[in-house]
């Protein structure tokens, strides 16, 4: 029983990070119908930026995160601006464009920070909590809390603000949205900006849990993408559920299948997707591709 619960605890904290990565994928997808393949690399950039401001400039962790989020948000804007001329013209080229951006970011990371990584000490150095023999890291609780707050803010933004409502409208029918005077380009830009910010949030938070290296975003990107698909691509609650599910699933397969865990994780994922191709919350708001 203890192993069971501890496995869930271990899976949930990484699951929350996968959920944040999945949110970034989903937000861009629901708005534009585009998979942003550079997202994983933006996560790496975010992790490096946050760790650089935290370790080298000695800023408080929270402030370092905020700066990293602002900078990756700007990167998101740049990606969208460069791809904008292709919007509604050639979708495949846009996809390839995001892959190209990913490669460029990867190269930039190695040029700026080098190919070797860095370890980030936990900003919450207190000892883990002990609940009936169950150990819970305080930093995990911080990660969960921040992920929850980010999700709530995102949902409020989409449902309560004019800009958010406009983005929802674009997601549903971009031609009708254009007809009522919504600037589709602006909507897309905001989606990319928030997506970039979420990437830095995920990357910055995962830094102290893992090891920041150029390969970081690749692993998180794949798991985050799988999480988004599992939850229902484009769905906000789907991204959260999918992220946590992948995290916990990963944790359990690691315990039971040891060296074959990755294989089993993705086998289970494939079976779920075969049974429910639209994912758990498959709403399919987007049908543009």
């Amino acid at each position, binding site marked *: 029983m203890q192993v069971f619960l501890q496995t869930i605890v271990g899976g949930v904290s990484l699951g929350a990070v996968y959920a944040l990565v999945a949110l970034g994928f989903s937000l861009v997808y629901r708005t534009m119908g585009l998979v942003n393949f550079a997202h994983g690399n933006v996560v790496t950039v975010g992790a490096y930026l946050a760790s650089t401001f935290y370790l080298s400039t000695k800023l408080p962790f929270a402030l370092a995160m905020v700066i990293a989020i602002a900078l990756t948000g700007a990167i998101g804007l740049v990606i969208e601006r460069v791809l904008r001329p292709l919007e509604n013209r050639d979708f495949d080229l846009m996809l390839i464009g995001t892959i190209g951006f990913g490669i460029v970011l990867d190269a930039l990371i190695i040029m700026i920070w080098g190919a070797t990584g860095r370890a980030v000490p936990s900003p919450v150095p207190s000892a883990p909590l002990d609940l009936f023999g169950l*150990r819970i890291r305080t930093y995990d609780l911080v990660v969960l809390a921040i992920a929850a707050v980010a999700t709530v803010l995102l949902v409020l933004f989409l449902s309560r603000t004019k800009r958010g409502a406009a983005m929802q409208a674009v997601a549903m029918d971009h031609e009708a949205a254009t007809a009522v005077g919504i600037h589709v380009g602006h909507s897309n830009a905001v989606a990319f900006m928030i997506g970039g910010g979420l990437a830095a949030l995920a990357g910055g938070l995962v830094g102290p849990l893992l090891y920041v290296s150029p*390969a970081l975003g690749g692993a998180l990107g794949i798991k985050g993408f799988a999480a988004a698909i599992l939850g229902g691509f484009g769905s906000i609650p789907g991204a959260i559920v999918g992220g946590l599910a992948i995290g916990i699933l990963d944790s359990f397969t690691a315990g039971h299948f040891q060296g074959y865990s*990755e294989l089993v994780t993705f086998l289970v994922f494939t079976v779920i997707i075969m049974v429910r191709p639209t994912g758990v919350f498959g709403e399919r708001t987007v049908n543009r591709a």
Partner: protein
Amino acid sequence: MLRRRAAAISVLAVLSAAFATGCSAPGADQESSGDNSGPIKIALVDAQSGQLSSLGAWELKGARLAIDEWNAAGGIDGRQIQLGVFDDQGDPTVGTNLARKIDSEGYIAMIGTAESAVTIAMAPILKQAQIPNITSGQSPGLVAVGSEFLFLNGPTSTTYDETLARHVVDDQGVRSIAMISNNGGYGKGEHDAFLKALRSRGVTPVADQVVTTDQKDFSAALTGIRQKNPKVIFLGAEEVESGLIVKQARDLGITATFVGAAPQGTPVFIDTAGARNAEGTIVSSPYLSNEINDASKKFAAAYRKKFNEEAELHGAKAYDGTQILLTALKTSNVATGKDLAEAIRATRYQGLLGAFAFDKTGVGIFETSIGTIQSGKLVAAS
């Protein structure tokens, strides 16, 4: 930009090599090494990018230091030594492509790689091309390849883990031991070698957990180990993964001592785990510190002067391996192929890791020492 230029240069090199071959008479294959002019071309293949790139960076520094020393002293037979650096990204597929590439570009010997899996993948091609290779890998799988062109610049896992088991089981009398290792080339080799060393002492590990090479969360494996409450936990994984395992284990309240081989003595491991978590880790290593003797002090000083950082095991291994290769080139008057391999095998060399004397299998050293991590530094065990 740099990469593009490098690509352009290599394309040019391939073209010119092809051109040269095309022009020469049939049968007179371009043994570019065979001619006695121009620089002696040695390839260094290692991960210069990806999660294992720190190994590649250290190895490059060690090899570079040795070659620069020889070049400064006038090279070999009046010829300078030229080091070509190739990035295998820690990927066996990239490695096999590079093996063909260094063959076609006329390199006569290879230093690297630091990853057993990559070296094992490259070995058949290098054997066919008759290019001697001095690797930093330590997996017993390297010996199993059975190539007379493959040499190790350090002991195999068998030696590391035999020394470790002797220290832990025989000297300290610990019999409650858990193991956690990954299923990659290195981890598998460590797992098998340590398990064998334990079995020969009649010890069965209380837990034997296997993880994948890119796993990030070890709660399930570690909670399983915690319930068995072992005194010692053996780590069979590379630097970063081992560091993550130790960090998460301490968070789970595991207080057991960790033991391991080369990766557990590196700064990357200590930084990833956190110095406090790694404290007391027992390491089996052929090169515990820069302060062991005059040779290591001299090496460390030269290393610091050149690269402005502290030397460590992997740089020392690559330095030794490169010195052995260059010595063999000198004694054989820049032989190539089989003759060079025989010259390497015949070389007796007193290196930083100890006295090298290669056997049939290409292993030259059969000894490691025990050290512990104290205040974030690896020191010899008292």
